[in-house]
């Protein structure tokens, strides 16, 4: 098992270098100069322009900039934002808890509804249950997030007034972040009602962000269940006279879970990076929105650093998933 873990771990390095190279070259391919963008219509004196570029280290050839960047990365320094002039690591980790909290809640929502929906659809194949679940999940999967988010806001927040429109906490509560996780921070504060406010702010964005993973999980669970239900051991279990419930939940589901866990792992990665639209609609102060804004401002250190940290996290989530396979299915552990 330990050997298996290390073998997987060494695959991570080339992926890491690849990510740095790719983000670096891609953002430098986008036309636009951060100094000129900041100056806007006002324009900037060429001498001053050159001076500022030199201060930022942008006057050097690209390969030198890259080597300088990568050597700093290995020293744990991701640079400072051109816009706020603050260290990237500090910027990222003040925002990351918000993204993590939202992604976590969205994933719980997706798994909580996606798994049972998939199991029911798989077991009751061909029935109206199956058709309804599949049709709804296809709709969920194809829903444009921006439209879906606004629709939810208009219906639940403006029309019904049940949930807050956006943000993480009502403006009435003055709570300073300790952990950055609003649920924990509000729980620790002594302001009554703050926790409830934080929780209610999470509902709509979690549903919107969790809709696509929910659909993917439901469909994946269904097809995986269908395959497993045809297996010999399921028939044997049924022949032994076990209850349907036990056959499905113990014998079939455990084997059907492997592809589902892969999907959940991949979707978690997608959520961490892909919350951009949800974060923008719900004014959620997370990293997705931050990277998006950094791109439009050509804030190179923020884009490079942000993507690098997220990519590293995704690599590790997948590593975790790989290891989890080994635990669930011993055959993977021994053969790979």
């Amino acid at each position: 098992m330990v050997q298996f873990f290390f073998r997987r771990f060494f695959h991570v390095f080339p992926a890491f270098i690849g990510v740095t190279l790719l983000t670096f070259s891609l953002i430098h391919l986008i036309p636009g100069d951060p100094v000129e963008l900041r100056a806007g219509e006002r324009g900037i004196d060429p001498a001053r322009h050159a001076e500022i570029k030199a201060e930022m280290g942008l006057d050097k050839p690209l390969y030198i900039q890259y080597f300088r960047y990568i050597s700093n990365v290995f020293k744990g320094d991701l640079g400072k934002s051109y816009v706020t002039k603050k260290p990237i690591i500090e910027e990222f980790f003040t925002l990351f808890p918000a993204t993590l909290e939202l992604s976590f809640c969205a994933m719980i929502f997706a798994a909580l509804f996606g798994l049972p929906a998939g199991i029911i659809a798989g077991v009751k194949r061909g029935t109206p249950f199956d058709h309804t679940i599949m049709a709804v999940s296809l709709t969920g999967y194809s829903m444009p997030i921006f439209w879906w988010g606004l629709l939810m806001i208009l219906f639940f927040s403006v029309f019904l007034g049940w949930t807050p429109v956006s943000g993480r906490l009502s403006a009435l509560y003055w709570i300073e972040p300790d952990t950055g996780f609003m649920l924990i921070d509000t729980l620790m504060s002594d302001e009554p009602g703050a926790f409830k406010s934080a929780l209610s702010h999470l509902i709509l964005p979690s549903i919107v962000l969790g809709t696509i993973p929910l659909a993917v999980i439901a469909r994946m669970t269904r097809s995986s269940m269908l395959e497993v239900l045809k297996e010999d051991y399921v028939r044997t279990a049924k022949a032994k006279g076990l209850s349907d419930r036990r056959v499905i939940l113990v014998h079939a589901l455990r084997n059907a879970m492997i592809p589902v866990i892969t999907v959940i792992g991949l979707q978690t990665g997608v959520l961490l990076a892909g919350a951009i639209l949800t974060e923008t609609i719900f004014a959620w102060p997370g990293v997705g929105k931050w990277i998006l804004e950094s791109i439009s401002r050509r804030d190179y250190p923020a884009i490079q650093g942000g993507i690098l940290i997220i990519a590293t996290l995704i690599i590790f989530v997948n590593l975790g998933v790989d290891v989890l396979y080994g635990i669930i299915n011993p055959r993977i552990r021994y053969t790979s």
Partner: protein
Amino acid sequence: MKRRKLVSVASIAVLFCMLAVSAQAKTLVFCSEGSPEGFTPALYTAGTTFDASSRQIFDKLSMFERGTTKIVPGLATSWDISPDGTVYTFHLRKGVKFHTTSYFKPTRDFNADDVIFSFWRQHDKNHPYHKVSGGTYEYYAGMSMPSLIKSIEKKDDYTVVFTLTKPNAPFIANMAMDFASIHSAEYANKMLVAKTPEEFDQKPIGTGPFVFVSYQKDSTIRFQAFDKYWAGKAKIDKLVFSITPDASVRYAKLKAGEAHLMPYPNPADLAAMKKDPNINLMEQEGLNVGYLAFNTKKEPFTNVKVRQALSIAINKNAILEAVFQGAGKVAKNPIPPTIWSYNDAVKDYEYNVAAAKKLLAEAGFANGFETDIWAMPVQRPYNPNAKRMAEMIQEDWSKIGVKAKIISYEWGEYLKRSMAGEHTSLLLGWTGDNGDPDNFLAVLLGCDAVGGSNRAQWCYKPFDDLIMKATQVSDQAERTKLYQQAQVAFKEQAPWVTIAHSVVFKPMSKKVVDFKIDPFGGHVFYGVDLKE
């Protein structure tokens, strides 16, 4: 007896509730559109940053009267200008307190040292704070301060003397700009001694009407009214910026009662906002101008008649309707009507295809010619959809035989190439900084700005002489006369087609009292109140 007791208990309870309501803090929630870059205005250029810093936390020597471009005394109660216009002596206000917060307790009142610190940090490359937070001081440089200010001296604790290298009439207006915000020198020193100078730019201390409480990145900024503010405490107790980048969501927040005021509504939502009984929709012309500039150094735009013909050929009203959807007004001068010296007597070129054709034939282009129109790739207040505008101009020009190709570049590239004069004609615009006509006329049309922000590459001596003379005299009536003449010369020569001034809309809850639209596009909350 029992009933009487009940009544008295109830009335005490009611009284208590009333007291509790009146004692409840008045919190105004502003649904802002983006995050500030930081809290030291001199380091940054974005209006969003100024809203969160200079417009609430800081004061300047001179200030703009709320809702106008009129200059009034600020931290300086008065100023004297030497007869040659190069020495400005500011007499400072006494008894002005700096904010007391959890991170700084001032031991002295505001004085001349604070003024010198605030400017010298930007001016002197060897100042201990010059390089802190990667300072590049774009606005200070952009307003030519490094070459204009020769020295700043402290005559006594309450008198500061600025010596300029040349007379500059807009100087007092420049002193009211955001970059000229006054910081506490005492706080700066304290942070320097503690070896945490960056903190100075992240946890601001000013003399303004609101004290900074906290900032949660991309989420919330909190302010508290400063009870020792020299002009009297603000009417609201707490001010919260709830950062919401999407305009539809801002509107939803306003409708749901989660915010009191929002900037930059979607034009498509304006009709619904006007009908909403809970929303008060204020509007005012913006301090900006959207224009089409001809490159007057390139054929055939060297010819005045061609420029005039192409100006006449454009149907501006149609553009206003299609591109601005009612949120704009036709522009006839290069400065907006909210700026003093606006010449209302100037007659605009009226849309007339036949006359345009005739004029073009007189210029020797009876069969028209081929040209380019550059369209900006971004949305700006002065031009919400440059591509659509370019298409409409292209169609108008085709009616007189001028075939135009529409070109667009990435924004940074667009600005750089147009500054170098690669275009033949282009769409662009400008938003004013200090409410002085010089900030439009010299910056955008002066001979000195050719190769820079003068996109028409237009250097016309009679015009340039007028605007140069206007910066040398400090009498506003005389300056007004000169600028009005300059606008006439501009119109005759037609280096631009002035297209529109946008109209700024501010939707707010009916509970908001006495909000005034800032002509500079900012949001000032001192003086604003909330109804129960």
